[in-house]
């Protein structure tokens, strides 16, 4: 019932065939299986490379982004020669070079509620390697509704999490995280950074779990969450139980179909990190600021971390990191005209909320942050 291996394939997969847990039958099983990888970034790079090398017969890649040079510090499936190209095309070329015997299907489109069920239904397993909360909740709900395993991994700075969510036999992502954090409370990798090798470590663990599930060997991380910290080099495991009140997989589930996940999470379904906005009326563009800053009365408040000032800075800006702002409000004068900025506008939008709730009225958020200033006003300033 599983497809036969050709003479060339037997040679290619000989190191797998030698392992009794895989063997010829397991390798044929992999050839007959399919995996959908949501996101072709930090996690998607090692995941897709290793699943392609392992001989998964059909791999689906979902991403609508293009390769940016700031990706290459960790997204090793792409290269300098593919900067500016579609990520799914850049990845497809690399994967087919690694293994021309497999099929790569690409979905260069946003993974939205309208399209996700249609895309995912023909795959045996789903791997969540996205970079944002809306797509994580969407990926989970799709897996629950279609009755497929969702191999989950997530990263931030030095921390990684891995689990296998399979609502048929264990908890789902929502059992652990019923609600997303409020917008802005948890920084994204585009705002907070990530050690380049971290998705390599975590993504290979994710690929390992996918192979175990597809082969039906070992003990997949169902009902367990792995917590990895690169600084401590610690691997901790915690037990996850099915949440009886889970809104998608519990006995009284009230979410029966896909919802609007951007609305649910209050943030966009991507992590570009350079489009931070405080909302209508509260933003100022870099060009507008360049005009207004000529007057002397305007105060600039930089809410980035001190080490970021070494990369780029605006003259005469006062630095109070966002995390310290609430405690240091007394250093500011609410009567001042003030423009708040960070790297891309996300943290400063949060700072603005804090200032407004503390009674500041003459404050604006620099839309797109100091990076937009570097793009539109002072092109000698680096973009990061």
């Amino acid at each position, binding site marked *: 019932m599983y497809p036969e291996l050709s003479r060339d394939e037997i040679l290619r997969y000989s190191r797998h065939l030698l392992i009794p847990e895989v063997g010829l039958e397991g390798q044929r099983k992999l050839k007959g299986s399919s995996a959908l990888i949501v996101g072709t970034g930090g996690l998607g790079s090692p995941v897709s490379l290793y699943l392609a090398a392992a001989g998964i017969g059909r791999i689906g890649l979902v991403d609508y982004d293009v390769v940016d040079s700031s990706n290459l510090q960790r997204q090793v499936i792409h290269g300098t020669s593919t900067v500016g190209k579609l990520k799914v095309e850049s990845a497809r070329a690399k994967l087919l070079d690694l293994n021309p015997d497999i099929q790569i299907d690409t979905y260069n489109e946003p993974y939205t509620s309208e399209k996700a069920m249609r895309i995912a239904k023909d795959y045996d397993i789903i791997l969540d390697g996205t970079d944002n909360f809306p797509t994580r909740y969407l990926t989970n709900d799709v897996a629950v509704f279609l009755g497929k395993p969702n191999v989950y991994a997530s990263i931030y700075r030095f921390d990684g999490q891995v689990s296998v969510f399979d609502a048929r036999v264990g908890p789902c992502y929502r059992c652990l995280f019923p609600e997303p954090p409020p917008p802005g409370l948890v920084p*994204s990798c585009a705002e907070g950074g990530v050690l380049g090798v971290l998705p390599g470590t975590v993504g290979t663990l994710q690929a390992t779990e996918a192979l175990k599930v597809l082969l039906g060997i070992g003990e997949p991380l169902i009902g367990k969450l792995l917590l990895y910290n690169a600084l401590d080099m610690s691997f*901790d495991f915690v037990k996850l139980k099915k949440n009886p009140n889970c809104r998608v997989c519990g006995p009284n589930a009230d979410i029966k179909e896909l919802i609007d996940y951007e609305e649910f999470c209050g943030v966009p379904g991507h992590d570009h990190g350079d489009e931070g906005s405080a909302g209508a009326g509260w933003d100022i563009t870099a060009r507008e600021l360049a005009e207004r800053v000529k007057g002397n009365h305007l105060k600039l408040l930089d809410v980035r971390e001190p080490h970021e000032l070494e990369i780029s800075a605006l003259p005469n800006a006062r630095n109070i*990191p966002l995390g310290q702002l609430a405690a240091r409000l007394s250093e500011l004068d609410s009567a001042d005209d003030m423009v708040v900025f960070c790297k891309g506008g996300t943290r400063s939008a949060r700072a603005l909320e804090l200032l407004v709730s503390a009674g500041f009225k003459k404050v604006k958020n620099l839309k797109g942050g100091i990076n937009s200033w570097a793009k539109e006003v002072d092109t000698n300033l680096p973009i990061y």
Partner: protein
Amino acid sequence: MPVLRIPTPLRSYTSGKSEVSVNGSNISEALVDLTTQYPPIKPHLFNDSGELRPFVNLFVGENNIKDLQGVNTPIKDGDKLVLIPSIAGG
């Protein structure tokens, strides 16, 4: 004293510390002690009405306090408490 592991996203609120020793005979007391030692972390764990935020997952050893007795879960010397953050990076 029980020791609470602080995940990276919250370490900027604990002066960079990865582990904090906390006093208390149950989770509630331990969290009060934590937020007394490091007040800036409080809004990240509790909402305005003083309840633990729904996305905050706290484990005693391997077990989620939601599967035990919630914030009334008793703890003892040497217990390892783990805060599990919601992170979305990929």
